[in-house]
């Protein structure tokens, strides 16, 4: 009884959530956590080959007693994102929570990165998030409110050699978050970000590049990589009524990395 009192504003029972990038480790973890906390979830993927994995995830969410729907597309275009939003409203009844887990790591020396790389990295990591926020935000403003969480990286705050484009795109997501939060502050839409540290993700150089990974892990305050599901507590806090007074902010989950020298 007393416990319910303490946890009640963390509940998102019956809310409709859209996770864009649900095929990625962080997106999949986010979807599962939202479902555990009571939400029905639309899983949107940008990878045509990920249907089976997403159906598996949808099954797990179904086993929790929540509704889950899957949408796979070949690329993230505005039309696709708009369709995701419409489909969420149609299948789950509303769009209350949107989590943008879109992310394609890119590391290369600056002098070897051409204009095509620039366009690709900024499109994959920033333009898609901008479009997703716009489409989700439009629907939320129309329907009286909602919450958006953009997943970004601590590279938004720190430079990384060979990461010039990728880190700049992450910083752009953080900046986008702040301005949208102010623009929609009185329209009932909160917009926040989570900055992730080095995550266990096979696409990340922290896993893929063995030599780099070995040195990196020794440098981390806890000397280990972050597991995707460790974003759960912060994500649930931000999307739930518990954070009704929090907007335009970011939470870094990095095991203390940002505060070391």
């Amino acid at each position, binding site marked *: 009884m*007393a*416990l319910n*009192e*303490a*946890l009640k*504003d*963390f*509940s998102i029972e019956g809310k409709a959530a859209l996770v864009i990038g649900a095929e990625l480790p962080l997106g999949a973890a986010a979807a599962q*956590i939202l479902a*555990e*906390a009571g939400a029905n979830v639309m899983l949107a993927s940008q990878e045509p080959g990920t249907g089976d994995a997403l159906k598996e995830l949808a099954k797990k969410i179904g086993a929790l007693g929540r509704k889950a729907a899957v949408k796979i597309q070949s690329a993230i275009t505005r039309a696709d994102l708009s369709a995701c939003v419409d489909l969420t409203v149609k299948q789950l009844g509303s769009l209350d929570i949107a989590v943008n887990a879109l992310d394609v790591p890119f590391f290369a020396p600056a002098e070897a990165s051409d204009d095509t790389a620039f366009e690709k990295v900024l499109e994959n990591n920033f333009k898609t998030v901008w479009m997703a926020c716009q489409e989700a935000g439009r629907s939320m403003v129309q329907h009286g409110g909602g919450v958006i969480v953009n997943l970004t990286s601590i590279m938004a705050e720190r430079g990384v050699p060979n990461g010039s484009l990728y880190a700049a795109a992450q910083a752009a997501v953080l900046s986008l*978050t*702040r301005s949208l*939060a*102010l623009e929609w*502050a*009185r329209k009932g839409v909160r917009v926040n970000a989570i900055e992730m540290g080095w995550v266990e993700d096979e696409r990340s150089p922290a896993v893929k590049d063995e030599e780099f990974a070995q040195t990196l892990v020794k440098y981390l*305050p*806890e*000397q280990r990589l*972050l597991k995707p599901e*460790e974003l*759960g*507590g*912060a994500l*649930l*806090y931000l999307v*739930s009524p*518990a*954070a*009704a*007074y*929090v*907007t*335009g*902010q970011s*939470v*870094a*989950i*990095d*095991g*203390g990395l*940002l*505060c*070391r020298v």
Partner: protein
Amino acid sequence: MILDSFKLDGKVAIITGAGRGLGRAMAVRFAQAGADVVAAARTLAELEQTAEQVRQTGRKCLIAQTDVTRSEQVNAMAAAAIKEFGRIDILVNNAGGYHKGMGKRLHELTDEEWREGIDTNLTGQFYCCRAVITQMLEQQGGKIINIASGWGLRGGKNVFAYACAKGAVLQLTRSLAVTYAKKNIYANCIVPGIFEGAAQYFQGGKFIPIGRIGRDAELGPLALFLASNASNHLNGAFITIDGGGLAGGITPTGVFPRLTETAEA
């Protein structure tokens, strides 16, 4: 399940400045989540009211009348907590706030006013951390939550000792995080905006993007998140709860550039 990770069953939390406002809100929320509470502050009558609210949830509350600027009193507070409950899992450094000299320009401040501001808002947090960390090391874990302020991140007109102390609280937190990371002791900061206690100075919060002053009870869930296993791996961070105030600030709220030609093109 994710919601269970927010519970504090079997944990013991010390909260300073627990006699009113944000401190009381956190004490009650922690108790609702299952923790026993050590409520510390200078004013006994206020602590008794907090204790009554904590006990109504079915949890225990130890009153520790403490001036956090006096290290012997802080050490006695920690000792009393260990004697009563046998452990300390959570410390919330919430005591602090207004001090003599706030509102004065720098050249008008006396030595005494400066020291009071720093002692109340920084040194007290140091004393409290020092008093509990040995116990947390023995237990191989703990959570420290330091309360900073928007003035720890931005300058304030005629706010000197307070702003300097709160800025230093962020640094205290970061160094704690780096020093004890491998010992399972996590230290994080809350940066509150304008809440009920200061409402009278801020015209109902018209200038805050979200359009209102924060409610004291709204701090409870954030503190609970940082005190619980839900925030494991979050370390040395600060989380701002201010209705969007610090996300902006380079234009007055409600004043912003109009649509430009290039935006339409």
